[in-house]
């Protein structure tokens, strides 16, 4: 026992000061996550600031954001394996891990978010499938597609884990890893197919079908969410290795990989912005007037129209910085560009949730405010902290960035 503690102490002290502070914050958040998580699971959702009007809060924003950003994994895999854009190969491991964690924590946050976590399995045993091929409830579709895609991501993750030098030395595992890797394009195809559905259903379809609510109701929301995920997700898949690069002070992937992914993301952002502008126009002239409201009146209250302004500004930023070669090739602007991309997509989810719920249902009621309680913040940030820790662990101990490995080999060879 003492040995372990000593080992951990030494390990901890071997890092630089900044890393140590970061680690302490992250572990504190994880501890808080455990404590408040138990409180929420055992004593109910009363401790949140959600209420009968503002029925979903920061956690569903987390879910939507994680799925949209994690959706970058499917799109990157799709480009790599199906379109055979081999430039992305050095980033794929990081991408798969990010996708896996995003989906895992989507599940975790969903379990916190439902009132009866012990009945969560009802989603599988009593699904609201309706009489058609497609499930009747978007949430049923979300549950099933998320589960299946999560399984796919697990399979995709296995070869990465098996590449570890200890595991790799076992012949059976080596072969399994090798062949799984070879079969990965099937996984990518299946994943793309599944991801297509649940991106659309969780991010957009789930809200777009609520025909009683003028803030959300629009049939094309499903597709808008898919485009948003492809655009923002790729930015996210670029952003995290970039940060890793900054932290590790090593080149984790060749520049052309980043450039290629940035270009894809930039092009998707053009598509997304056009779609989003079409969406706003159609909302204001067609769908919102159906409910006797005017589009601009829906933007009031605490959060206001700034959500939309920030979202569109970030979209514009991402388009300019990621598509123009002049900017893209400068490290700093590339970084700003992908941040813009991630913020744009996250704000589009803020817009769906914060704005959507704050709009009054009755003319005599005002806009509702929502201020997440400490429990909600800690559970959400704690799960992000866990994700960060897992990613850090992989980056340190796993053959995570093939480029880095290659470099190391070269150094060793010399």
């Amino acid at each position, binding site marked *: 026992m003492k040995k372990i503690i000593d080992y951990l102490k030494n390990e901890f002290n071997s890092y630089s000061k900044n890393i140590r502070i970061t680690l302490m914050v992250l572990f504190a958040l994880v501890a808080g996550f455990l404590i408040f998580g138990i409180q929420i699971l055992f004593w109910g959702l009363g401790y949140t600031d959600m209420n009968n009007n503002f029925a979903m809060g920061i956690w569903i924003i987390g879910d939507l954001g994680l799925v949209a950003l994690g959706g970058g994994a499917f799109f990157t895999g799709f480009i790599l394996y199906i379109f055979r854009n081999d430039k992305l190969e050095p980033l794929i491991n990081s991408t798969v891990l990010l996708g896996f964690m995003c989906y895992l924590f989507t599940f975790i946050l969903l379990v916190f978010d439902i009132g*009866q976590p*012990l*009945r969560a*399995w009802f989603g599988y*045993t009593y699904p609201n499938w309706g009489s058609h091929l497609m499930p009747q409830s978007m949430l049923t579709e979300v549950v099933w597609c998320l589960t299946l895609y999560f399984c796919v991501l697990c399979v995709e993750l296995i070869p990465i884990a098996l590449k570890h030098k200890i595991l790799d030395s076992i012949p059976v595992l080596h072969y399994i890893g090798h062949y799984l890797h070879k079969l990965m394009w099937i996984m990518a195809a299946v994943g793309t197919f599944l991801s297509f559905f649940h991106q659309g259903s969780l991010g957009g379809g789930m809200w777009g079908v609520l025909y009683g609510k003028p803030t959300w109701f629009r049939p094309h929301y499903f597709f808008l969410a898919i485009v948003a995920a492809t655009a923002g997700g790729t930015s996210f898949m670029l952003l995290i290795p970039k940060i890793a690069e900054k932290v590790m002070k090593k080149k984790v992937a060749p520049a052309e990989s980043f450039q290629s992914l940035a270009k894809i993301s930039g092009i998707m952002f053009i598509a997304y912005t056009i779609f989003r502008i079409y969406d706003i126009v159609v909302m204001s002239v067609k769908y919102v007037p159906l409910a006797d409201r005017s589009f601009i009146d829906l933007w009031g209250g605490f959060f206001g129209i700034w959500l939309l302004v920030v979202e569109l500004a970030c979209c514009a930023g991402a388009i300019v910085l990621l598509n123009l070669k002049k900017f893209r090739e400068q490290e700093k602007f590339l970084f700003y560009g992908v941040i813009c991309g991630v913020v744009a997509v996250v704000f589009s989810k803020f817009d769906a949730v914060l704005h959507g719920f704050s709009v009054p249902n009755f003319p005599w009621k005002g806009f509702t405010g929502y201020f997440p309680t400490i429990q909600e913040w800690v559970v959400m940030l704690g799960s992000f902290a866990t994700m960060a820790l897992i990613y850090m662990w992989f980056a340190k101990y796993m053959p995570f960035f093939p480029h880095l490995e290659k470099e190391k080999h070269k150094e060793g060879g010399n």
Partner: protein
Amino acid sequence: MKKIDRKDFLKIAGGAIAGSAVGTVFSGAPFISLQWLVEWTQDQHVPSSGLEKYLKGVCEICPNKCSISVRMIGERAVKVETSNSGCPFGQTSLQMLYHPDRITTPLKNTGSKGRAKFTPVTWDEAIKDISSKINGIIKSGKNDRIASINKERNLSSELLDRMVNSIGSNHSYYEPTLDTLTAGAVGGMLDYNFDDADFILSFGARLLEGWGDSASISKSFSRWKERKVKFIQVDSVCTRTASAADEWVPIKPGTEIFVALGIANHLIKKKGMGSGAADFGAWSAIAGEYTPEAASRLTGVPAKKIEELADALSRAKSPVAVAGKGGKAISSSSAEIIAVYGLNTIVKSRSVTTKQNVNFAGAAPIQTAAKFLAESKKCAGFDEFVKTKNFDMLIVNGADPVYKSVYGKELAAKLEKSFVVAIMPLVNDTAAYADYVLPSITSFESKTAAGDPVVKPVDGAIHAGDAVLRIAKMVEGLQQSFQWKSYTDLIALTGKTAGAAGFSFKGDILKKQLADLKKALGDANYSLSLVPIEAPVVGDGDGLAFPYAMKVLGSETFSSGKLYVQINRETAKKHGICNNESLKIITEKGKVGSVKALLTDSVSPDTVAVPMGFGHKFYTRYAEDKGVNPREIMNDKIDPLTGTASWLVTRVKLS
């Protein structure tokens, strides 16, 4: 075959574990256990079932004694069926019956008073101690220092009155209700015939908020709608009644009486109407000063409107003018009640008659009693008693004077020094100061004129009348006048009424009160007026003990532990108050707080509308520490006729 080594063993074990897992999942056991886990962790309660039947009962929440039907499942009462003729207060009576905080054994105070720290004792012990205390007081010749306060007139209150009077004390009082107020001002209770009325003019009487016989008034109200009867509400706030009325005449707070006088003036001067009462002349001379124009200046109602009202009142076949501001909690000055009743007599309304309560006769007081009864003067009412008299012993029957009197704090100080007995089902603010709390039963547990009790009485609790009887039987000299075995023998004897004595206009009272009112309204230091309003079901505060009352309240009354007072937008702007701001309300008497401001144009300018019924210190776990009690700071000028502090107008400022 190779030998099984450690690696192979691991493989077998792995296969076995995986196999068990799969088998377990497919057997369905995990799902069933999860279901059980859900039921167990959530404490899923299934109500026990039984044979369903409906029993007739009497709702005794208020003195009107509506008959209701109670749905029974086995021995449990589960629902009050009023079939469109009940009131919300009656619906809560099951919550009273099964209240978890009901006391089931006599409680004796241990420790200092006002803390509600009690230990249970037996009935015999409690009765013996109480009666020996009474005997001691009689022996020391202080018979008139025993007093009683009742909630309302019913069997047990008449019995308690009789006991206190027989001992030789005049001091038996009732909480201020419409009946006690009108009895003081007019000389008897007023019996309104709302069903036949064709014009209703209400001066701040919130008819639909618990005023009077609320069940029958709601029925009359729907009939007015069908018969197109004009119902006009004169009020300073847009209350529920004002908004449900055909017309709302907004006035400045506290000035209802000037509207009444303006109408009277118009009727006397222009229509030549009058009354044959003895001192009508003196009164009408004072009223003569309030021409519609003068009244208009004071009230803010256009003179033409006042004339219109007067015309409509005189034109109607059976008009009713109603006084008594408030809903369940009622207050009004005697001048105002007289003025409004005066309107009825001037237009010779057939729909308003007077009557009087009659106690059951045949008391045989103890020998020394007559002397005390002659010597000590009975106060005009409850607040006057609380303010002026001292006592050695107070018996409280269901009432809550500490909470409901504007002199609550003074009373609490007096209670600390005297011997207090409280007879009630739930410990309230007054019972917290009691030496003994005796548990009484609720309406569904007692035998009534309608028949047997609906449910068996809670173990340990007895009828308040029985408690009084048991005490009286132990008091020396009272035995022969309390020979009944149980309260059931008295059901037929109580609740009797008779015609009232003559009515007098009492011009001097009017003159004095008008002067006071004008002075108060002109107070520049305190520039706002406090108007009490009532929330549904909570009423004057008794309803707050029942958790379902909270289900009715909206965010405009009480939300997240804060009481909301309504303030006009213009006024708020003038005083620099913004919406949701925390405020303290200050009067000459003191301050209460904090409350939150709700800016709305539905109250008149310079008015603070404060909900009543909140701010209990001790009144079950559901009513404690909720909001503030505005009575603490309200106008405490005592009306000489009603003996009650009237809320004519309370001038306040905010901070």
